[in-house]
């Protein structure tokens, strides 16, 4: 039985006006519409520059949408339009409900990996408990305790990516925005990250993920949104959209 969507994106447009380049305009998104329901994962596919990252950033409100609506249904049943909600509301939704995982880890400098993972979840005290869980999740992802106490800035790309994913998954969030969550990982770690993401899905988390690997796409996604030059070229269930045309890797 299909649940009501947690996110409804309607006619989303994003145009950048670059004043430093004489007012040049770049259209990143043009009339994109789709829905995501709890427990669903929508894979975003399309060539570089198609608007995939812009779409995630508009939903998270790092980019301010130029037009359209991004209606997010909160746990309390309210609807927040991430395109137009006030800053305080956006910060509240980010803290409690939506997590964005950029392709590369951005963390506070000079903070131990375990704290980078734990801090966003320790808002109401209980830091020790959260830190213990953070350590356990990092260990599961192959980041050993001696590494957990060092700064992620000295980690390899794959280690940073695992810290990044652990930070997003340590506590349940209702919507995850993932920008190539396994791109820097070897096969073993990729499977472990996919296990965690699949478990989060089974627990009801909705996901929108930029994916460039057909194996990851088939393991994680149930819907595919094909972006082409800022437009939604195709949107539908995994079986009906020929995702393999748009992504690399062997199934």
């Amino acid at each position, binding site marked *: 039985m299909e649940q009501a969507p947690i996110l409804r994106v309607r006619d989303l447009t994003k145009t*950048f*006006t*670059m*004043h*430093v380049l004489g007012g040049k305009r770049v259209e990143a998104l043009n009339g994109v519409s789709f829905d995501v329901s709890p427990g669903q994962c929508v894979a975003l596919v399309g060539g570089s520059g198609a608007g995939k990252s812009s779409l995630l*950033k508009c939903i998270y*409100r*790092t*980019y*301010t949408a130029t037009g359209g609506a991004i209606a997010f249904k909160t746990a309390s049943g309210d609807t927040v339009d991430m395109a137009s909600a006030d*800053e*305080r509301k*956006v*910060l509240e939704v980010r803290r409690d409900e939506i997590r964005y995982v950029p392709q590369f880890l951005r963390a*506070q*400098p*000079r903070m131990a990996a375990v704290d980078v993972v734990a801090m966003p979840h320790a808002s109401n005290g209980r830091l020790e408990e959260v830190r213990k869980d953070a350590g356990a999740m990092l260990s599961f992802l192959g980041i050993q305790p001696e590494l957990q106490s060092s700064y992620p800035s000295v980690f390899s790309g794959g280690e940073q990516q695992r810290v990044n994913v652990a930070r997003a998954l340590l506590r349940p969030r209702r919507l995850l925005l993932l920008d190539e969550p396994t791109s820097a990982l070897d096969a073993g770690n990729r499977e472990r990250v996919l296990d965690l993401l699949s478990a989060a899905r089974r627990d009801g988390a909705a996901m929108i993920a930029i994916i460039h690997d057909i194996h990851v796409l088939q393991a994680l996604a149930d819907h595919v949104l094909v972006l082409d030059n800022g437009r939604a070229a195709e949107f539908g269930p995994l079986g009906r959209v020929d995702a393999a045309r748009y992504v690399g890797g062997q199934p």
Partner: protein
Amino acid sequence: MVLALLTVRGLTKTYGPACRGRGSEGCLLDREDDPGTSSCAACGLIAACSDVSFDVYPGEVLGIVGESGSGKTTVMRSLYLDHMPTSGEAYFAAFEAGRHNIFEADRPQRRRIRNYLMGIVYQEARRGLNLLVTAGGNVAERLLAADWRSVADIRSKAADYLARTEVPLDRMDDFPAFFSNGMQQRVQIAKALSNSPNLVLLDEPTTGLDVSVQAGVLDLIRDIRRDFRVAIVVVSHDLSVIGMLAERTLVMRHGRVVESGLTDQILEDPQHPYTQLLVSSAL
């Protein structure tokens, strides 16, 4: 719904008489757009800050960025009541439950706001510290101003805060004049925090410090924010400092707020031409 800790409306600080309504082009102060300057072509008035409005919420860090001369420091000194603004209002939840404009406070009330309710860290240590009073004495002065009376209590409290800000305790009885810049800033931070204020104002707290010292001071500010849950307004011309500390940011130019938003939005999707220039100028 969380109420704002501080609500600032129409804060304006000018120097010189205004030609409002008299000049043919209209006074700088009457213009709604960014006039491209802080001085009025008609009357020569200088508007250090003009019609600045914003809110600060409990426990949040609000950043203010802008080039020198944009009015950032004028806003901070107005809020700390170092000088009186020409016009504008500010309501502070910790003062009279936010019912009275702090700019209309009388002298004892102003003292209370400065000594009990707010703390400030200035860019230049000599403005925030008496360099010829010991480090411990500087913190003690503020505690005395807030009616602490027991010498033993004052000394142990001062030692606590200096230790918290990593000022070596064996330097507590030295004069800050003989401290490095980074250590002077840490004494200022200890002093600002010692009365458990509701709001801390940081005016370019790391400007002019070596990178390693700057990192130490920034980490200290980050820890303080976590441990004391205090609201902070931080002014910097350095976008990376703002990016590290602030959730929301105001961009100022020519005394006006030209853009405000979530810090990541300001850094990644700036709207105003000046903000775009600022972001594209970062190294």
